[in-house]
């Protein structure tokens, strides 16, 4: 009891309500303590509303900053391939293309591996291994993107140039998608590094979704004589499908917005080439490289429009993915 009496009055209330010297008043207040409660709720709600305000401000501010470019280029900004700061011509197509292609490459590599790993972690691995393995995957997510890029320049790019790309060219070089000299720096390098970076995202969310599938599903399958793989294939994966799609979208979202690592290995050439061996450029990379040096308002505004585009894509993909994941988990309804 005495402990309760001695609780200090926090500053939280100073903001609103409760006039000076209210300490005694509050102590005497009835259990509901309407003033204190109202102030507390008010302040916390304010913090909550801040979260709502930030993305709204971002969109508004970026729209404002990209006004010039929006007015001058309109929709042709998305389709034009000319990026010429000297002549004040700005088209985002090569960058959109680079972002999308490198991210799709990343998905092609990362999705099978991530789902395999998530299944391993949730259903197949010996239980002693699961925790440490999960932690190692988290560490992969913790490596700063600039370190990924640095490693990319010195380890991944040479490896691609000397061993992987010559092989690709030798066997698949006649397909336009794989032609060109082995440069190392380029779309493929960006795709591989992005793949490594999004594996933890896809894996951890897929694992959560798989965990949410009730064990009764698994037990039922095993009871019917299913092998471990049959159990996963017929009893677990179907129930988790939309959640896994959500996980993949979140991974894609991370790849689309990733900046530093991509900038360091993609080659930074504003041309939409068909081959994945050719150097390219991404939206995030061009912002990173040129924003601080943009010397005209229109230039700056074109880069801001690129940021706006990235933001909109991120918002839409997140909404979609979160909804899918939440839906899947809810359907499992806490039985897990």
């Amino acid at each position, binding site marked *: *009891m005495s402990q*309760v009496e001695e*609780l200090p009055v926090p500053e939280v209330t100073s903001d609103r309500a409760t006039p000076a010297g209210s300490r005694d008043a509050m102590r005497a*207040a009835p*259990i*509901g303590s309407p003033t204190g*409660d109202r102030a507390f709720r008010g302040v*916390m*709600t*304010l*913090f*909550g*509303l*801040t*979260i*709502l305000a*930030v*993305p709204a*401000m*971002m969109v508004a501010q*970026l729209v*404002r*900053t990209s006004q010039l470019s929006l007015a001058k280029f309109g929709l042709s900004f998305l389709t034009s391939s000319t990026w010429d700061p000297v002549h004040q011509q700005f088209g985002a197509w090569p960058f959109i293309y680079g972002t999308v292609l490198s991210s799709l490459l990343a998905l092609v590599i990362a999705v099978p591996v*991530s789902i*395999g790993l998530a299944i*391993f972690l949730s259903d*197949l*691995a010996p239980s002693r291994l699961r*925790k440490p*393995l999960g932690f190692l*995957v*988290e560490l*992969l997510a*913790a490596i*700063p*993107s*600039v370190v990924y890029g*640095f*490693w990319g*320049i010195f*380890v991944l790019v040479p490896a691609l140039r000397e061993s992987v790309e010559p092989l690709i060219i030798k066997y698949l070089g006649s397909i336009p998608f794989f032609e060109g000299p082995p440069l190392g720096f380029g779309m493929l390098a960006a795709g591989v590094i992005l793949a490594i970076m999004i594996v933890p995202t896809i*894996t951890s969310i897929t694992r959560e979704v798989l965990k949410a599938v009730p064990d009764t599903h698994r037990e*039922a*399958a095993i009871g019917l*004589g299913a*092998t471990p*793989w049959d159990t*996963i294939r017929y009893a677990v994966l179907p129930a988790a499908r939309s959640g896994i799609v959500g996980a993949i979208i979140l991974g894609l979202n991370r790849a689309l917005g990733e*900046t*530093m690592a991509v900038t*360091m290995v993609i080659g930074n050439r504003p041309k939409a080439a068909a081959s994945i061996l050719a150097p390219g450029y991404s939206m*995030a990379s061009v*912002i*990173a490289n040129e*924003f601080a040096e943009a010397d005209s308002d229109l230039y700056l505004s074109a880069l*801001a429009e690129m940021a706006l585009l990235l933001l909109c894509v*991120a918002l839409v*993909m*997140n*909404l979609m993915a979160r909804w899918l994941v939440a839906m899947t988990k809810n359907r499992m309804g806490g039985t897990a």
Partner: protein
Amino acid sequence: MSATPAAHRLLEPGPGDRARHLRSRFFTVLCTLSAVVVLAPLFSIVLYVIKRGLAGVSIAFFTRLPAPVGETGGGMGNAVVGTLVLIAIACAIGLPIGVGAGVYLAEVGRGRLRTVIRFTADVLGGVPSITVGVFVYSLVVVAMHRFSALAGGIALALVMIPTVTRTTEELLRLVPPQLREAALGLGVPAWRSSIFIVLRTALPGIATGVMLAVARIAGETAPLIFTAFNNRYWSFAVDKPMASLPVQILTYATSPYKDWQDQAWTGALVLIVVVFFLNLTARIAASRAMGGSRR
């Protein structure tokens, strides 16, 4: 749960038991292999960074300014301090908002508004950090007419807020309701029990979440390159450009000079050690805190 149609398929005459077991073995091996495939780059990165960076670790690295091209020696002292200052600013701004919003979600909020705010927090977590950089540039740097540590700190705060909010909410929800009921039963006002009973109980867990958020922003480069920018000298002024470890690593890593690249590797090693240490500590603290209540 409704019977899954898939279950019937299992009973149909299939390719035979042997084949099924073989296939199961095959896919188990594939899944195990994917674990190996994922861990390979992790080890490659860590080992390579150690190999290239370890030689440069010295007291001078943490205390000296970067040396001009051609001169050996020098360090990243200003960048190390800069990163600490930027993190401090980010925490000063991001923690109250992040924790406050988390308290709102767990304790105060109701109905649709709460759902919308929780969703928004998640969505905010998925906004590319480069976009955050451009946003803060157009808001703060333009208004101040120069790059500044403050702008960098704000950008990092925006990156950390969603993580802090969601961890706070989740941990507050883990606090047993009996604690609050006991407090209320003793006549403690609801808001006080929220702060002094519920929040306080969850505090160690929230600290863990904060550590993870700090680990994340410690390595962020993209939001800093046009907010805090870079600085070749010692600077503690919040309204001036400030060096940071990630930006310094980027500058040196992409330079053509061997000396600078070596420094960058050492910087990368320091950064990785710090980030891993924060992750490991957070993880251990979390499993210890959960140890009693779960399993």
